[in-house]
């Protein structure tokens, strides 16, 4: 009975979102000229009073002396800024519609070794969170599954499109939750012995899986790819071969050190670290290993009670300072991926340079995901994924006025803006 009523609610909600999507205005494509703007190219400095021309989904021209095509729709951006779309390098966008109800979340599959399950296939293009996120200038996110050990394959998704394929931004990577040691917090009631046993067990499990993956790779090579169906190992094959990065989620100092050793021992060729709450404690070693890092959230507490109060905010900047290539993720529990620029802003307030913080949410994640030819900066030939704002996008009060994703002009509406329109002056008001 309980279940039935619950599924009814979920069904109702799902219908609701379809209905509201159907009413949404559609994105438009075509040629656009964004004129008289301050252009933050990220890679090539700031262009004052310049123009960005968008055509066929690409940035066709950028600069001061730009010929505006006759068929282009001109958007006067006098006094405004143009930035490349921001990339959140760690979300569950599209996998979670809302929390607490399992039917509304698709993040965690059964099994501790399921690299073959793909976020890409379960991102709901109609999620209410997608418009809510993109109207704030966050145009692209890495969508991560969750779970134990090898919990699935993450996908980089643009926040526009009617199918996951239309949204796909060209990167996938297997996610490994690196075995955790130690107590997870004061609420962790396990004994030291239990914790030790659990972590030994999972470490053995990891080594076992990796050994099998290596064997599978060898045999697959020897048989010219004629191995029988083994989805877990097949999913790990590009990782073992270094063709696809392994996204290693790890946070605690000790675990990061263990992960560094493990990566070295197993000769894992292509790794991205993600999480890294205590990355600043191991920054030099990570820099030496030359492993890129996705850190976040920035708006977070220090991990230890004796840490300086601002260590969470400062973590990203400290890692950057040590020479690590670092991107930022929000990894937000409340689907507030729209707050990505504020995470970057706090990193700046607590020590990172603004330039580096901006790169950490644009070109750096694009490079880490191997899509820097398409995303992450405003350059001719790249995808026209940009936004126009009335000020510094890190500043809280700045308004995002236009968003383009792959050249599509996105309607600046979301359920949250629609509710504002409807309820600021409600009708009927107090009396019907």
């Amino acid at each position, binding site marked *: 009975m309980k279940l039935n009523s619950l599924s009814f609610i979920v069904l109702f909600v799902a219908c609701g979102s379809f209905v509201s999507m159907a009413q949404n205005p559609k994105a438009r494509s075509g040629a656009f000229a964004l004129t008289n703007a301050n252009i933050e190219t990220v890679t090539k400095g700031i262009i004052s009073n310049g123009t960005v021309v968008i055509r066929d989904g690409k940035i066709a021209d950028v600069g001061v002396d730009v010929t505006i095509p006759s068929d282009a729709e001109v958007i006067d951006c006098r006094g405004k800024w143009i930035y490349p779309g921001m990339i959140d390098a760690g979300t569950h966008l599209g996998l979670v519609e809302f929390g607490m109800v399992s039917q509304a979340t698709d993040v965690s599959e059964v099994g501790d070794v399921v690299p073959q399950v793909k976020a890409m296939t379960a991102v709901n293009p109609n999620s209410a969170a997608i418009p809510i996120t993109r109207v704030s200038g966050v145009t692209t996110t890495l969508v991560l599954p969750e779970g134990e050990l090898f919990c699935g394959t993450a996908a980089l998704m643009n926040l526009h499109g009617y199918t996951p394929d239309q949204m796909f931004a060209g990167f996938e990577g297997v996610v490994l939750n690196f075995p955790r040691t130690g107590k997870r917090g004061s609420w962790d009631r396990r004994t030291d012995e239990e914790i030790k046993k659990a972590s030994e067990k999972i*470490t*053995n*499990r990891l*080594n*076992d899986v990796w*050994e099998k993956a290596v064997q599978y790779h060898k045999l697959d090579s020897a048989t010219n790819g004629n191995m029988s169906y083994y989805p877990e190992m097949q999913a790990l094959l590009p990782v073992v071969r270094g063709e696809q990065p392994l996204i290693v989620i790890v946070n605690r100092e000790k675990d990061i050190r263990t992960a560094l050793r493990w990566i070295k021992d197993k000769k894992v060729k292509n790794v991205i670290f993600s999480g890294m709450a205590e990355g600043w404690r191991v920054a030099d070693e990570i820099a030496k290993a030359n492993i890129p890092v996705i850190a976040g959230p920035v708006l977070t507490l220090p991990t230890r009670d*004796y840490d300086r109060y601002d260590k969470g905010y400062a973590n990203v900047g400290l890692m950057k300072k040590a020479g690590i290539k670092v991107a930022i993720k929000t990894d937000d529990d409340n689907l507030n991926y729209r707050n990505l620029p504020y995470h970057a802003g706090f990193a700046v307030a607590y020590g990172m340079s603004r330039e580096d913080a901006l790169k950490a949410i644009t070109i750096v994640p694009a490079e880490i995901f191997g899509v820097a030819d398409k995303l992450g900066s405003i350059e001719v030939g790249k995808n026209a994924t940009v936004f126009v704002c009335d000020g510094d996008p890190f500043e809280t009060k700045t308004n995002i006025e236009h968003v383009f994703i792959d050249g599509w002009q996105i309607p600046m509406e979301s359920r949250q803006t629609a509710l504002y329109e409807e309820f600021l002056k409600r009708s009927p008001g107090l009396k019907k």
Partner: protein
Amino acid sequence: MQFYSRNLLVVFLLCFCFFASVAQNKQEERELPPVSSTYAITNAIIIQSPGKNIGRGNVVLKDGLIVAVGKNAVAPADAILINGDSLYVYAGFIDGLTRNGVSKPKEETSKERPKDPGNPLPEQAGITPQQDVRSTINPEEKSINEFRALGFTAAQVVPYGGFLPGTASIILFNDESATDMVLAEQSSFFSELVPAQRVYPNTVIAVIAKWRELYAQALQAKNYEKVYASNRSGLTRPADNQILEAFYPVIARSIPVLFEADKYLETQRVISLQNELGFSLVLGDIKEGWNAIPSIRSAGAKVFLSLDLPEDKKFEPKPEKEKEKKKTSDEDAKKDPEKEALEKRKEEAIQTYTAQAATFSKAGIPFGFSTLSVKATDVQKNLRRMIAAGLTEDQALAALTTMPAAILGLSDRLGTIETGKIANLVLSDKPYFSEKAKVKYVFVDGVMFKYEPKDDPKKETSTSVDISGTWTITTENPDGKFEDQVTFSKDGNSFSGSITGARFSEAVNLENIELIDKQLKFSYTTQAEGQSMKVDVDVTVEGDTLKGTASSAGKTFTITGKKNPKK
């Protein structure tokens, strides 16, 4: 240890009942009573009370009382003489809060969820203030002898239970029947801020709220009973409520509330409650009280400090091996200023805990000690640590004798070696607080308990099993069963060894052989399909057999072994 009893009948009956069934088979050894109930300890150094060492003299005990003390005290003709030439005599120690001698009820761990967790029965909620610890006192509890062997002769004992477990009693560790142990009943109304499991009150805030409500209801009921007693006409008969009635002496301040409050915040919370309700308060087993001193003073609360202390590595004996390990980790710490600072703060914290008693002394707050949460084996060490941290020996002795006697209202009977007091004495071979002092005799209620020096326990633990020789070891793995031969030989304090078998082309040396008690660990490396594999073995040795696991490359297999007969 020898054991004598004054109460022949009890012993006789007990023995009779117990042995009746087996008496046919064997004649049991029976305790014989001492030939006299008069004792004279002669020529011992007498510390009559803290700070009052009266030098060499005699102490005469008769029928459970001290009848004469001093140089001129004459041993009566019927006295059993104890030569005190090398002994120090102290008044018996008094424990302010303990469950030594109290039987723990069997815990019912029902996994069934409570039907109405918000409205449990009083006993589920931990509300049993009408209980009396006397119903659960058990002379057979081992804890009595453990602590008596340290010199404790009397204790305030409290019942097990929830946040209102019942009333305490003061008992003597005289090894008699439960009723004869009790010196004073209903000495206090015991409470702890412990929530109930799975039912209301499930948090400390609900415990305090419930306390408040029960107190107010008891106050109301007590007043009403008074009105009713004076003129019953026209009034409803007051309900019989044992729970509320248990509060009446608390409200009348005829007995104090004894609160276990080991943590600082608990201490403060209890004092806040006391400020609000106004009962008289004794705080027990305090471990973090130094910051609460102003509140304790203004509340007029009496105090028993815990004899438990956080471990301090400086005071722990270190095995040789650990010392070496320690060295290397110390070197690591030097490289890490953060860790060094953390260690330093931790050390300071330990020092503050250790100095608690000294801090209370300096602040002029009188206190006794309690053993509710201390291991018997730590008591003397902890007392010495407290003294090293600034407590004087006299203050320590006072906290074990005169102070608790005063707090418990028993100064006329306990706490010093004076004529007329109960014959509770501790006799040690060296001044009690000195490093190697051993208790030789304890008198409780005039009953003598003699303690012989035990064998050095170190000898026992250091005798590990002998593994030297050759063992046949069977490993079971998915590929089948394998038998190997493992040989160990002893080199001084360590072992060396090798493994051979069908799987090995030649004998492979064992590495990291480690034997602690019966736990044997070693590892070796083999070649399999061109790859080297390390195998870790972890087994328990029982005589000539061993059993445990071998693990390699993330897999764990069972192994068993037998020692080959010596040829």
